[in-house]
């Protein structure tokens, strides 16, 4: 029997959005995390933080509405919501590094079973790699969620015993949401919390480079 389809990037974002709580201050990184703002559970307000000095980012600007002095960390014109504030980049990172954000969501190339994160440089790739704010965010986040595909395009595990890519921070990740599963990093290792619809714990384990802990039936991810 062929594997069930994996989740789309939007579904990963949608599932990760459920981890956020009303009134939370949250930083979203490049890639899949940046899609999360569109999938917040109904009725909650989240104050999105941008490392260039914004708290209370709203949706992206519509065509014609763009103000290029009001961009997010991906250089995309955004809007603000009531209660927003502006500050300089040092204060923005005082917030990230100082543990003031309730959660941060980052993309990743690899996550280890100890919660080590590698997300800024691919070995052998051209260029220098780009750290940006990721190291400060990873070091300081009270709750760090990683959103990524479970495996690379060629099927290699991105969840591994030890990261082989250049590290962003040690033992920083709390939760991993992929196109196949939701996992928590615990002292004893990776706890498999949920699997994608139609997948089983065993099938997810088969494409994971580290041991997954689970007891009995593992719940399916839902998106409401």
């Amino acid at each position: 029997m062929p594997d069930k389809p994996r989740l789309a990037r939007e579904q990963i974002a949608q599932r990760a959005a459920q981890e956020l709580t009303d009134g939370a201050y949250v930083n979203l990184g490049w890639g899949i995390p940046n899609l999360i703002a569109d999938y917040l559970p109904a009725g909650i307000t989240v104050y999105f933080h941008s490392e260039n000095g914004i708290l209370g980012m709203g949706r992206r600007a519509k065509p014609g509405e763009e103000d290029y002095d009001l961009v997010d960390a991906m250089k995309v014109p955004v809007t603000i919501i009531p209660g927003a504030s502006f500050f300089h980049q040092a204060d923005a990172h005082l917030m990230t590094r100082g543990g003031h954000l309730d959660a941060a969501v980052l993309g990743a190339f690899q996550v280890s079973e100890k919660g080590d994160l590698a997300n800024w440089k691919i070995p052998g790739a051209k260029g220098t790699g780009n750290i940006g704010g990721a190291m400060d965010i990873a070091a300081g986040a009270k709750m760090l969620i990683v959103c990524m595909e479970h495996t690379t395009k060629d099927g290699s595990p991105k969840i591994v015993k030890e990261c082989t890519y250049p590290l962003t921070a040690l033992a920083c990740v709390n939760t991993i949401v992929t196109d196949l599963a939701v996992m928590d990093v615990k002292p004893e290792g990776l706890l498999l919390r949920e699997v994608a619809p139609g997948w089983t714990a065993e099938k997810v384990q088969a494409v994971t480079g580290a041991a997954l802990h689970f007891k009995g039936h593992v719940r399916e991810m839902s998106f409401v």
Partner: protein
Amino acid sequence: MKRKVFATLDEAVADIPDGARIMFGGFGGAGFPNNLIQALARKGTRNITAISNNCGTRDGELGLMFKNNQIKHAIAAFPGPHANYFLERYAAKEVTLELVPQGILCERMRAAAAGLQGFYTTVGVGTEVAAGKEERVIEGQRCILEMPIHADFALIKAQKADELGNLTYRLAARNFNPIMAMAAKTTIAEVEEIVPVGAIDPEHVITPAIFVHRIVKAKGLRYA
């Protein structure tokens, strides 16, 4: 939205336990959270470690706390000539004092706020302040290592808050308040005025709401 506005001063300080480390804003009679201090006197919290520029002005400001013998240890830059109750308790060895240069007091609180683990400074080298501190030479300059000052609570005074907790201050009543708001785990602000969310220009916010956990309205109270 998290409910940050408290109806009464007493409710705002109701959970401050004995032994708490508390920062108190204010300088030169301006920007002291005198209403919150009175509430803390009514609450009767004891064995407080107080972090503040000074140690009270006669019966006013922290004077009330020392009068009631609620503080066991003070960290201050300028205890002050009118800190009568503090001076009595200090002479009687009922309270201990760590004397810290004022700018270093600010930086040590800011280090706590910013998730930094210590810093080197030339301030205090060769003085009593250096006693017991690590000294080293950096770029030809003698420096000492100063450590972050953390706190469980900050009691601060602002002029205006929106209901989300964004704050502005009036003139030189700003002083230590924004630093302490960033440095403490729980920041409680007494304010002259509470306005709807969005009523403060995001560019004019001095303390972003992320740093403010409780707001209570009270008419500013000043001691001569």
